């Protein structure tokens, strides 16, 4: 009976969601031009329409995605991931680690215990790095928001490129044999048994998903709205092709500049993507924008500071350096190929 109740509730929720979602564009137009009686084609009206349409759209996508990913994540734990990765040879391990980084629950505040946990269980350093790069960089929120705003091609590119960087950078870091740049206590750490998790049933998984929605949406909604407001401003006021001069394909220095600019910025994916959409509309090149976005999401100063607890400065720099170079190369590649 409980299963039936949950199934009915979920189906009703999804139907209602779909009904609202597919009428948002019409609502945005109606709100701007009929209710506020604004002139079509003006700066302010196109900014307002963008904002009124995108805000509910992005928030609704966010709720749906976070819930879905929450359900998927309820099947994975760091303990399971570690078990899969320990004892794998390096190259295969790098690939698996990058893939598992996408679906294993992760928060950058847990980067240190996770690192130590992996290393003491015999997961090679390079493989551990592959996981640590892919987990924050291939962000589920970014992935599905890209899908919602640009379609599956850009979302797929983002994911493929993120995996590639995680695999290759992890593999290189493994080859560099930088064990001596890890604080010695990490290798002496004796791990206890960890948490013994009880098996979850479907009701638990749904609750897990709902908790994820509450947690994440309550944290990021403000960034989403700010991001969309900035995006709306760019959309309405910045002239067409304005970005082309300094973020277009012609400006060779724009890719490294975008990465340098992105590292100290610490925003979440939900806030950065509306800005990205507006930049692209105004003629910025996809590779440059993608590089900027990956640097913002994947490389953050707070994470570097946390990692400093277990890695000596040289390794922290090498780690960030390799990933940053990877992002720059990818940015150029996209600009040349597309």
């Amino acid at each position: 009976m409980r299963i039936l109740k949950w199934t009915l509730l979920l189906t009703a929720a999804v139907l209602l969601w779909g009904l609202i979602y597919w009428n948002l564009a019409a609502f945005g137009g109606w709100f701007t031009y009929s209710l506020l009686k604004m002139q079509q084609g003006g700066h302010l009206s196109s900014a307002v329409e963008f904002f009124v349409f995108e805000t509910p759209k992005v928030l609704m996508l966010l709720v749906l995605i976070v819930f879905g990913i929450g359900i998927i994540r309820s099947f994975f734990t760091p303990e399971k991931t570690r078990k899969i990765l320990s004892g794998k040879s390096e190259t295969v391990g790098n690939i698996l680690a990058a893939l598992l980084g996408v679906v294993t629950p992760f928060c950058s505040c847990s980067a240190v215990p996770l690192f130590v946990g992996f290393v003491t269980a015999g997961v090679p350093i390079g493989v551990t790095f592959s996981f640590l790069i892919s987990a924050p960089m291939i962000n589920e929120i970014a992935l599905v928001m890209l899908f919602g705003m640009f379609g599956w091609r850009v979302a797929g590119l983002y994911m493929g490129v993120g995996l590639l960087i995680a695999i290759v950078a992890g593999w290189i870091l493994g080859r560099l044999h930088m064990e001596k740049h890890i604080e010695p206590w990490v290798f002496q750490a004796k791990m206890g048994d960890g948490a013994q998790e009880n098996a979850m049933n479907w009701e638990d998984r749904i609750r897990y998903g709902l908790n994820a929605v509450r947690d994440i949406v309550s944290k990021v909604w403000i960034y989403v709205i700010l991001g969309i407001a900035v995006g709306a401003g760019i959309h309405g006021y910045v002239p067409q092709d304005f970005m082309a001069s300094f973020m277009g394909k012609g400006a060779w220095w724009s890719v490294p500049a975008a990465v340098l600019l992105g590292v100290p910025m610490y925003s979440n994916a939900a806030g950065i993507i509306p800005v990205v959409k507006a930049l692209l509309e105004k003629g910025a090149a996809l590779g440059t924008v993608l590089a900027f976005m990956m640097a913002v999401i994947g490389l953050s100063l707070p994470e570097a500071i946390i990692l400093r607890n277990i890695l000596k400065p040289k390794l922290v720099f090498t780690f960030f350096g390799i990933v940053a170079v990877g992002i720059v190369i990818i940015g150029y590649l996209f600009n040349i190929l597309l």
Partner: protein
Amino acid sequence: MKKIQILGTGCPKCKALTQNAETAAKELGLEYTLEKVTDIKEIMKFGVMMTPALVVDGQVKTAGKLLNIQEIKEMLKL
């Protein structure tokens, strides 16, 4: 006497978990001690890979989750 330990390096979730644990223990009327373990080396000895973690009488109950008061009560009753 229950020995409650909260493992975490001081993230907002760790603080919230500590508060919830305190409230739960008080509402149950337990005799307890509560300790915050913030040193990463000490945390690793428990084998957790996600923080915050809740430890009762030396046993890791959960890791990486912010439990509500009701959930903590269940774990303290056992």
